[in-house]
């Protein structure tokens, strides 16, 4: 964690003046943002707008994790990666773009997949985690790591013309496993390559995810603990869904957890975390 900040510089006051005048944020909230670190798991369609707005708002440190390199088909939605970034690891491309936006933000690129061997130690170094990943094993891994490390998790997803957002493990609310104790059958999971996605849909969800991260980081708190936001881009409709509370019998966050260390999530889900969710041949 970053050290607490006692005061803003004159340059910071000028730069963040538009948000400093908000009574809900103010200098106190800005100082909290400046000493907050956020781990961004996935620098794709969600992670790009999220990192962009977290950096612009003056978050202290951003961990930018992605194992992929920038491909042509990414450019339609992954707006931190410009044409010149083609072939670069996304973590580096995102970090470079974020530094151009705000050189005061500490950027830590991780050009690797998140795995059970390293995830917990990594998550422990951050205050808030944003799940911008694109596959089921990583979603369980990130959630379990956040429960074990005691960190709030702001999770979003998008596919085709729809998006979903939930905050897990925050304010006594449920974790991902409380909601989804059993992974979906691999043949029912569609990825962006097969299902497609309109680029601005993860854009909208990534921005909404950044908003919830900022509210948590600033101490305002999120309204999406135990609540899911569901978006239908074709209908232009958002829906706020009241979710179940934390489950006392949850395997990881319940009263008697059976999961006390990270597992093999690819085996658990029957799918790969790095191959865009194709079914594993077991």
């Amino acid at each position, binding site marked *: 964690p970053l050290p607490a900040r006692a005061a803003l510089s004159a340059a910071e006051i000028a730069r963040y003046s538009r948000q400093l005048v908000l009574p809900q944020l103010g200098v106190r909230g800005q100082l909290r943002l400046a000493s907050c670190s956020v781990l961004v798991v996935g620098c794709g369609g969600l992670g790009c707008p999220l990192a962009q707005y977290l950096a612009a708002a003056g978050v202290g440190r951003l961990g930018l994790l992605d194992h992929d390199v920038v491909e042509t088909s990414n450019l339609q939605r992954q707006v931190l990666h410009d044409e010149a970034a083609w072939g670069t690891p996304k973590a580096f491309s995102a970090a470079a773009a974020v530094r151009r936006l705000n050189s005061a933000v500490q950027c830590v690129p991780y050009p690797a997949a998140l795995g059970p061997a390293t995830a917990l130690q990594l998550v422990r170094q951050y205050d808030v985690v944003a799940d911008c990943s694109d596959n089921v094993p990583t979603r369980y891994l990130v959630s379990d790591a956040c429960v074990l490390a005691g960190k709030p998790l702001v999770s979003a*997803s998008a596919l085709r013309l729809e998006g979903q957002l939930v905050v897990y493990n925050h304010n006594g609310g449920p974790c991902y496993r409380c909601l989804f104790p059993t992974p979906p059958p691999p043949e029912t999971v569609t990825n962006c390559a097969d299902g497609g996605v309109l680029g601005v849909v993860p854009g909208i969800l990534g921005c909404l995810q950044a908003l919830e991260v900022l509210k948590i980081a600033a101490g305002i708190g999120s309204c999406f603990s135990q609540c899911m936001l569901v978006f239908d881009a074709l209908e232009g409709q958002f829906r706020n869904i009241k979710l179940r509370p934390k489950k006392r019998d949850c395997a990881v966050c319940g009263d008697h957890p059976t999961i006390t260390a990270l597992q093999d999530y690819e085996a658990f889900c029957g799918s790969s975390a790095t191959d865009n969710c194709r079914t594993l041949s077991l």
Partner: protein
Amino acid sequence: MAAPVSLLVEFGGGAELLFDGIKKHQVTLPCQQEPWDIRNLLKWIKQNLLKERPELFIQGDTVRPGILVLINDADWELMGELDYKLQDQDNVVFISTLHGG
């Protein structure tokens, strides 16, 4: 004899692709001896709306993992799950969880 029950049944997150891509279904369940609950609704959906690959929607007598069931915009866990007694004009939504980023 329970009276007929009219429902708005919705599918989202891709679950609608098992229902000819149609997201909103205005449904009237016929009169029957017992009151309609979600358990019976699932059977009715399987017989009347679900045309192919039912295993992508229903497993055993419940929905497959990864589908959230919402009754009037609340998680069905809060409402009694399969045992929830349907009321006229209820809104039941089946939403497939998304994982893309």
